[in-house]
């Protein structure tokens, strides 16, 4: 049984990584074919460095991801604190249901509805081209917010409501009490929310596709690349992304294990 289960896990992992392995291998192919291996070359990686459109898109992606993650984390944390303080169950329920809409809805519907909003209001104020940096940023903040709220909320509920009172009792004014006591105890939720927001934003294609206009992010550029002929440059780019994600994940995991060990001792 134990061996069978190990084999099963290995097979699923193989399934998950086979296409990635293929991609990595072909990114080093010397010919422009993605079917036949000819020889080792790094020409596709070198090509990437000169591809200004791609580098621009990379810059856009990072800017949007950083900004939208920061804004949605601040806004979302405040929202979670505020929603938690609402006493009326009914209002709370309505707000939480609305919050879940972007998570439950299909991305394509969220993307289209936001695009229609931007175009609609763009027309109202007489803009020809209303889509761009601002709209894609707003869209990303919007779909990030529920993830931030839902990762902060449980931490907030676990926090002993007497903690804030204890700080007040010891002479801390309310705002200071929040920063000195509540914020540290919900910090893991906030960090998780931020990381989720950041990666969701990096990764988003569908919603950006409908709301970015000419402000193209990396997934949009990849989409356009794959629309045309299939070339290994896409694979090279993807391999780079894969390696960065991999390194980041391993690093994050190591750090987490370390901090847990520190906590335990």
């Amino acid at each position: 049984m134990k061996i069978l289960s190990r084999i099963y896990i290995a097979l699923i992992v193989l399934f998950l990584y086979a296409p990635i392995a293929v991609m990595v291998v072909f990114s080093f192919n010397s010919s422009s074919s993605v079917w036949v291996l000819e020889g080792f070359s790094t020409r596709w990686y070198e090509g990437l460095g000169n591809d200004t459109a791609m580098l621009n898109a990379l810059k856009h992606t990072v800017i949007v991801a950083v900004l939208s993650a920061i804004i949605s984390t601040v806004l979302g944390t405040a929202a979670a604190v505020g929603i938690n303080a609402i006493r009326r169950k009914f209002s709370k329920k309505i707000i939480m249901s609305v919050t879940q809409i972007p998570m439950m809805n299909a991305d394509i519907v969220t993307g289209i509805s936001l695009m229609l909003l931007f175009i609609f209001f763009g027309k109202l104020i007489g803009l020809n081209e209303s889509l761009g940096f601002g709209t894609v940023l707003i869209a990303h903040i919007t779909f990030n917010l529920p993830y931030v709220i839902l990762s902060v909320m449980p931490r907030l509920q676990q926090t002993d409501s007497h903690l804030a009172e204890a700080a007040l009792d010891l002479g801390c004014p309310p705002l200071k009490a929040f920063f000195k006591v509540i914020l540290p105890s919900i910090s893991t939720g906030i960090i998780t929310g931020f990381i989720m927001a950041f990666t969701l934003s990096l990764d988003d294609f569908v919603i950006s596709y409908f709301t970015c206009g000419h402000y193209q992010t990396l997934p949009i550029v990849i989409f356009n690349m794959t629309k045309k002929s299939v070339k290994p440059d896409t694979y090279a780019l993807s391999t780079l992304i894969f390696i960065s994600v991999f390194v980041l994940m391993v690093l994050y995991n190591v750090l987490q294990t370390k901090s847990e060990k520190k906590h335990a001792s």
Partner: protein
Amino acid sequence: MNKKTFGNKLVASPYIVWSAIFIVVPLIIMLYFALTDSSGNFTLANLSGLGEYKKAFAISILYAAIATVITLLLAYPMAYFMSKLKISSQRMIFMIVMIPMWMNFLIRTYSWITILANTGLINTFLKNIGLRPLKLINTPGAVILGMVYDFIPYMILPIYSVMSKIDNSLLEASEDLGSNGFNKFKRVIFPLSRPGVISGITMVFVPSVSTFYISQKLGGNKTMLIGDTIEYFFNLGPDYYNIASAISLVLMVMILICLFIMNRFSDGEEGGVLM
């Protein structure tokens, strides 16, 4: 009683305004577009004309349903086996399953072309060992495979996280009360893991039913899913926004109905319906 919460509900107001403008209003505008023609007059023609896309709807639901079932069948044992590993191994596998999720799904889908294409890896291999090549790419099977592949982490992880929290003493208790392996599964493990299954199904079904990329890349242009149809109309320009809104609206309602039914199942007593 007397539970004083810290913080002030006013700090939620920026978010409440934000969610009203960017979550609620867009859906109302979508509704408005769905109910008007391109010059802004009220019409039901967009909605009544949707019969034309019956096939796209039907195929989308069918493919997404098949993909969801396959994903569940593959993911459930995976999650279960994972939860039985040593804690350190659990962590490692968890990370391994998660990493592909953090990569762009466009890329992950795209690399299947290299594997499945007529001159791709599988067919090259078959040719080399003297077998006839298979028609793999541009088939419904390839589309469903793409869905399964892209979304399987979303099924494994929620089921795993519920499963790993099942208290081992519960399993011992059920053995103590005379459950054999199958009974233990049916009466303890499955019911307790159901919340993970439900959220997994949701997280796989919703993106599958509304996808527009997987079908274009792996299904050729033969299969127009509902997502493809919406994207197609949007690319035709502003005159087609109304019909595209109408289709999106129906897609959204459909998804809501599916989620509602799912939630009903999750409240139900018997868990076997889903298996």
